[in-house]
Structures are given as C-alpha cells and as structure tokens.
C-alpha cells in the first residue's frame, strides 16, 4: 500500500517540477502555442478561400480538428526533448540512485505532458471559436473528441520516453524535421481524397488521421468520410492506434530504462 502511495507522491513531485517550469518560463509554452495559432490564421484566413474540402464545407471548420491533431503529435517532440535532457544532465541517474519509485519518474512525465497538451488544446479551441470554428453535436461528443486527442497524446508520451532515452538532446531537437511531414501526410490540412493515390493511402492510414477524422465526426465538422476502411472506421482506429503504440512503446521504454544499467 505504501508503495502505491509513494508512487503517487513521486509522480506528483516530478510532474510539479515540469509544471513550475512552464509557469515560470512561459516562453516555451508560448512558442509551442504560437505555431498552431499562426497556422490556424495562415491556413484558415490566408489560404482558406483557395482550399477545398472534399465533400464540401467550410475550410476553417475542417482545419481546426487537423490543427488539434498536429499540436498533439508535436507533443511527442516535447516529451522526447525533456526525457533526453534529463538523461543527458544526469537527473535520470539521480532519480535511479534514489529510493524513489521508478513508476513515479514516467507517471510524472505523463501527467505533466497531458496537462500541457490539454492547455494547448484549450487555447487553440478558443482561438478557433473566435475565427468561426464550432462543434455542432453537443458538448458531450466534443469532450469525447478531446479525450481521443489526449488518449493519442498519452500513447505518444511512451514513444517520446523511448526515443528520449535513445538519443541525445541535439538529436531530439532535430525530431521536428520528421514530425512536420508526418503530421502533414495526413488528413490534417487537406482531404486525402485530393492527394495522389499512394500518398492518399499513406495519409488515410496515418494514425493521426484516424483521431482527426473521429474528432471531425464527433464535432460535426465537414470532411468526414472516404471510401477506405480506415476512413470508414476512424472512431475504432482512434481508440486502437494509440493502444498499439502503448503496447509497443511501454515495454520498450521499460526495457530501455532497465538497460541503462548495462
């Protein structure tokens, strides 16, 4: 019983450290938020008039769920960065050499990242509401959609922890170069139906697309549908894909963490 209590305390202490960072050095939070907000403005208001939504509908309504998805996916870069910095600076070693619960280290990371991402979603949603995005199928459905985004974020925490233990902070910084296209070869900005055949397949099966498509459905936003199985079953896949990530990267992270002592 004590072990559970200590794990809970340790998680909170580790999470609190990160949250204090964000409160005291808000520059990074703003930097993280600036990109999606500017993108919403550029794509929504500048390119928006030239953009087509497959099946018709307002582009801003189509865009916002995509932006939520991209913000969530970029979160993996944040986790990756924090984990590799802690490992590089010897903080991880100090944690390991202390009697603290090892669950606390990763659970704390998850809590901090989920709080941070929730905040980003909230700010982005408010920004969307101002420029004309809305949800049309009730608050409950909207909340389920946000829960799906956070479920994906939770899965990506594990991807971030694994990769963060694998690479140095300098390499972690470069992860944006890969994240950027990965979040664009999806249904985030443009309907896959309007892409060339092979890219369309990639985009439709991109795990991010499933969450974004499911969210569009739950928000009552346009651009839902498509012929592929992935597009037809986006809600199911929005639950399954993150589960697959967790199933792969949770044990990999635990193994990697243990193997730090090799």
């Amino acid at each position, binding site marked *: 019983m004590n072990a559970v209590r200590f794990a809970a305390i340790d998680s909170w202490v580790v999470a609190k450290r990160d949250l*204090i960072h964000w409160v005291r050095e808000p520059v990074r939070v703003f930097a993280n938020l600036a990109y999606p907000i500017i993108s919403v403005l550029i794509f929504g208001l500048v390119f928006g008039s030239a953009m087509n939504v497959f099946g018709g509908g307002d582009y801003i309504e189509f865009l916002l769920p995509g932006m939520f998805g991209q913000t969530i996916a970029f979160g993996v870069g944040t986790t990756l960065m924090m984990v590799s910095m802690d490992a590089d*600076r010897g903080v991880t070693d*100090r944690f390991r*050499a202390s*009697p603290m619960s090892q669950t606390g280290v990763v659970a704390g990371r998850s809590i901090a990242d989920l709080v941070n991402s929730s905040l980003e979603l909230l700010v982005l949603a408010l920004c969307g509401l101002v420029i004309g995005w809305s949800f049309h199928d009730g608050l409950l459905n909207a909340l389920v959609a946000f829960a799906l985004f956070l479920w994906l974020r939770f899965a990506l925490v594990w991807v971030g922890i694994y990769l963060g233990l694998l690479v140095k902070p300098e390499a972690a910084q470069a992860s944006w170069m890969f994240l950027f296209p990965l979040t664009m070869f999806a249904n985030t900005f443009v309907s896959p139906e309007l892409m060339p055949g092979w890219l369309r397949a990639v985009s439709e099966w991109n795990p991010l697309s499933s969450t974004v498509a499911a969210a569009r459905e739950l928000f009552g936003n346009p651009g839902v549908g498509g012929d592929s199985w992935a597009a037809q079953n986006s809600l199911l896949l929005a639950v399954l894909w993150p589960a697959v990530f967790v199933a792969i990267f949770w044990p990999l992270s635990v193994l990697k963490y243990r193997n730090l002592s090799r």
Partner: protein
Amino acid sequence: MGVNVGHAVLAEGLHKRFDKKAALDGFDLAVPAGTVCGLLGPNGAGKTTAVRILATLLRLDGGRAEVAGHDVVREAPAVRRQVALNGQQSTVDDVLTGRENLVMWGRLYHFSKRQAEARADELLEQFGLTDAAGKRAKHYSGGMRRRLDLASSFITRPSVLFLDEPTTGLDPRNRGEVWREVKRVVAEGTTVLLTTQYLDEADQLADQIVVLDTGRVVAQGTPDQLKSKLGGDRIEVVVRTSEELPVVRDVLGPDAEVDPDAFRVSVAVADRVAALTRLTSALAAKGVEAEDIALRRPTLDEVFLAITGHKAEERA
C-alpha cells in the same frame, strides 16, 4: 549487514565491459568507514564506471561489491537508501529556487511535506545557502550550484557519498568552497569515494589514494606513501640563462627533466644530502652559478607519470 562492517565500500575483482572494451578489468577497492578515498586516473581509466557500479547504476559483469554493508546487486534498494551520488554534471534544477530543489529531493526521499521543508532549511543553513534560498538556481555561481547539489545528496545523511569529479569546471575559489563542504561532511562521519583528474584535489581531501589506469588499480596508498614510492625526493636547479640548461643537465644525468620556460632542470634522487653535495661541487667546477637549488617531495603529477607512463591529462 555484511561481514565487512569496517569497510564502507568493498569491491573485489570487478569486471565491466562495454561492447568489446574492458572498462574495469579486475578492480579491487576497500574504503574504511569514515574516510575519504580518492580514485585517481586519466579519462577512460574506469573511474566513473566504478562509481556507477557501486552506486547501483550499472550492472557488473563479474566480481562482487558491498556498499554500506549491502551487496550492490542483490540488495540494491538497501544500498540506495544509504548512498548518495553527485555526478559530473550538476543536477540542480535551474528554474526552481535553491529551497525548492531541496524540498523536491526531500519529497522524493519520502519525507512528508513539512519534514522536507524543515530538512531543506537545515541543509541550506549547513551549506551556507540560506541567503540564496529563495533565488532561482540559474542565478547561482558555479560553487553555489555544486554546494546545492551536494546539499541535495544529504537529505538523508547518507553513510557513503560518491563524488564523481566534483570540481571539474570550477574556478579555484569555488573549488575551495566545495572542498570545505566535503571535509565538513566527512568530519560528521560520512565515507566519501571521490573520483578526480586533479591530483591536488586528491592530495587535499583523500586519506587514501587509488590510482586507476585502463580499468585496474596500478598503485595505492596515502598521498605521502605514493610520493615516497617514487624514489624519494627531487632536486631542482633553476639557472639564469638558457645556455646553462644543458650544462646542468649533463651534471644531473640522463634522467633529468628540462623545463626551458622556467629555466629549470630537475631529477629524482635517492640520497638527498649526498646528491646535493655532489651537485653543488659539480656546478662550481663548471662555473655555473645557480639562481636556486631546491630539494622537494614529488608532486602527485609526477607520481602519476611515473606509475602509468603518461600524464594525467593525456589519453582522453
């Protein structure tokens, strides 16, 4: 408790390989409780590997080790409760204040919130950081950060403290501050295992020095024992002009070392008095008037060179 109650750290035949390279190759160590042991050696000698194994951070491939009476493999959690590790880099959190850093570690060592705060204030006082307690650590000097890092290792008054190159990158004044704190915690009964590349640091702090090279112990003893091991004393002659350097060199023999910048020639001698007498008469016969002649114990730098065949800083 293990059998070796008198030894706070005991290692027997430690082996550790990284890929194909042996980092530790039959490393033995015995540190009596309440003393400071300096692990000395160049980069890559295996110092950090040894400390990480003893602090339960690395698994060993062979041999056995006991720290604070507990086996580092079978009783790792018990070891962790009694040791603290200060690595090469500072783990101080820059954004948190000094006090918040210590309270965080107190909480992670499972003190209640109130206990953690009380302990933090005690430690700030002991390590001379009370005035800076409310300042964010990023505004601390290098020495203050090190002291805060040390303080965070003292949350539970560990019986064994591992210090991995504690003053690397600090200026002399800050080094002095850290040394003072280390001496203080030793006086309070903590056993310290210290790795360093700085020979004067080992000289200053250590009761016992263990010289490590390519993963094994090549020499050990007190600083004085190590110095006398090197054939006793050195004789040093400082001359006025560089033309006189080769003349003095000829007098002192083939082992003499010439430092042209300092106009100095030095050599190890077995019998100091006889050597001095011989030297002065030989110099007089050659018409050399020395600026200074000195007899001194060798520095640890010279000990290191003599034992390992290379200088401490080389072979990164």
